[in-house]
């Protein structure tokens, strides 16, 4: 009987780990996408933390379609880069286990705590954490600024002949 104790303990730990890693994610926003439910949830959580609704640019990250954008971006990536992007999502999601503020997943945190996590990545003394944050923010910013409403809010134009149009308007 004593022999079985470590086996049960290992199995229980494995079960808890599996649950911590894979269970409890909402169903996928993009059903046929390459990103799984967990990855889409991480993208959505990061998107709305970086770009909250009702801010100086009213559109939130998910309202700007960042999950769908990332799905397309991911699909077009070469396979080696996909692995790196997946690792980045996992690093963000499970970073709080190591770096705080609580031993839970990023997507399980409330909005304020998510902001704290991303802020600690952004300003981290650890170079790799800062680079991870920068990579994530670059991808999501590309998607956010690609949305016409965001571009409009920023006054950003993609005009192929801006000076002629300016002169005509004047």
């Amino acid at each position, binding site marked *: 009987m004593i022999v079985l104790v470590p086996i049960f303990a290992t199995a229980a730990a494995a079960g808890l780990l599996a649950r911590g890693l894979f269970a409890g994610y909402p169903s996928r926003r993009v059903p046929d996408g390459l990103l799984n439910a967990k990855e889409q949830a991480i993208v959505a959580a990061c998107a709305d933390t970086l770009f909250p609704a009702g*801010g100086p*640019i009213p559109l939130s990250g998910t309202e700007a379609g960042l999950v769908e954008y990332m799905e397309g971006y991911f699909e077009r990536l070469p396979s080696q*880069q996909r692995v790196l992007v997946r690792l980045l999502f996992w690093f963000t999601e499970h970073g709080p286990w190591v770096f705080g503020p609580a031993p839970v997943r990023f997507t399980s945190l409330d909005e304020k705590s998510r902001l704290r996590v991303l802020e600690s990545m952004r*300003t981290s003394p650890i170079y790799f954490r800062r680079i991870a944050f920068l990579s994530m923010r670059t991808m999501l*910013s*590309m998607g956010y600024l690609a949305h016409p409403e965001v571009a409009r809010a920023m006054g950003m134009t*993609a*005009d192929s002949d801006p*000076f002629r149009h300016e002169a005509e308007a004047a």
Partner: protein
Amino acid sequence: MSTDKPSSGRSLPIQRTDESPDLSGADPHAGVRVFADYRGELDLTCEILVVGSGPGGAVVAKELAEAGRDVVLVEEGPPFGKKDFTQEAGLAMQRMLREGGTRASRGNMFVPTMQANLLGGGSVINSAICARPPEWVWDKWAAASGVDLDAHTMAPHFERVEKFLFVAPTPTEVQGERNLRFKRGCDELGLSSEPTWRNVKGCKGSAECFTGCRNGAKKSTDTSYVPAAIRAGARVLTSIRAERVVADGRRVVAVHGHIVEPFTGKESYAVRVRPKLVVLAAGCMQTPVILQKSEVALESGWVGKKLLMHPGLAVMAVYPDPIDPWKGATQGYHSLHLLREGLKLEVLWSPPAVLAARLPGLGVDYQRHLRSYDHMAPFDVIVACEKSFGSVRAKRSGFDPDIKFDFHDDDVRNIQRGVALLSDICWASGATSILPGIHGVPEELHSRAESEILRTMKLKGTDTITAANHAFASTRMSKSSTEGVVTTDGRCHGMDNLFIADTGIFASSPAVNPMLTVMALADRIAQHVAATA
């Protein structure tokens, strides 16, 4: 299996063209073979095979075709027409750049570096800056590896390229406030500055160089040298990846590769080319990979060694009034005042989203900065490193290079000096704050006094977001076969019919943007081949 035979019966030599053909209204890529054209394996014979259609390869192909040679030009990427260009940063980078635009060197820090993968190579996506290296650069090259080139020898080649590409200073009408503020700052400080000279005709100041010129104003090689090469009889085949050079003793006898699908890179049919002479112009990162995978021309031990780059670092000036940075020539002004000291100061622009990622703040604060983006102008400094080196190695699988680069502390100190000068330019041009984007420095500097930290801090490379898109010297030229890979004529030491014509052959830094230099060198190599081979 299809066999392409060389064209025959052509009267030689063909008239050389001195100016890029006028293609207004015409398809610049007419005659270019694309992925959909291939029905099976390709077996080609030709006199000259040129690998790569960027600034080096396209010049060689055009010049040799016009010299009456039977030229085949192969390019891995597809052609992009004006309608194919998209302003969405992510999509543009993924479609036009290798590794989906995510390439970075490893080493003591990550340095993002881009390589184009399309007909015309880097010339399609760069800012079109054409700058001749100052005279003293050639002395440095001589000191580096005994290269006996000088400004006088190179002058006719620069002139030919400049004339062909309509190289001229950026006109004031399309500068826009972003560029003019930089000029104003330089003027106030007594730093010399000048409009950039560019290979552009009819620029409208759309600031879209990086994602491809929708106006067709940029004279990238796919709309200039490549059409001229086709007109002179060259066969241009895209979606062909050259993978291995097959040599028999001192001679290349074949080049093997595959047809690859655009954007996915999926391998299709095999390609075998039997040329009499090969010019590799696949770029400073890709040519070493081909040589290493082929185990050809490696005797010198220099292939892929001593990679040099121009790391660049930017700061963002914030003005009290809107300057609409998305209007105006992409990089319309620069200062060569401190070139001798390894620093080139310039205006920077790229898709707004790429630059936005370095803005301060998170959430609402980040959005606030995005909202005031129309008041910002990014300026950057690139540094000609004296002590920072890297390497390029073929990976075991695939054809992407493994790039290593170590940013030396002394060069970091020099770039820090450049950043401090940029902050002076910002203040002198009327900025009310600066966003330095450097770890360990306040995110927003509100006064000259506050920005002194940019001079006094002990900056580390890893504190910065440094990128480097000028890369060279991975197959450097040298007088002796023990000091480099190619001769000053571009021929690989120890090989009779293998040449290289990309920035890999630079003996050292050109101090300025490398495109014009590699084109002039390619022009010289082509003339040498035409005369001797």
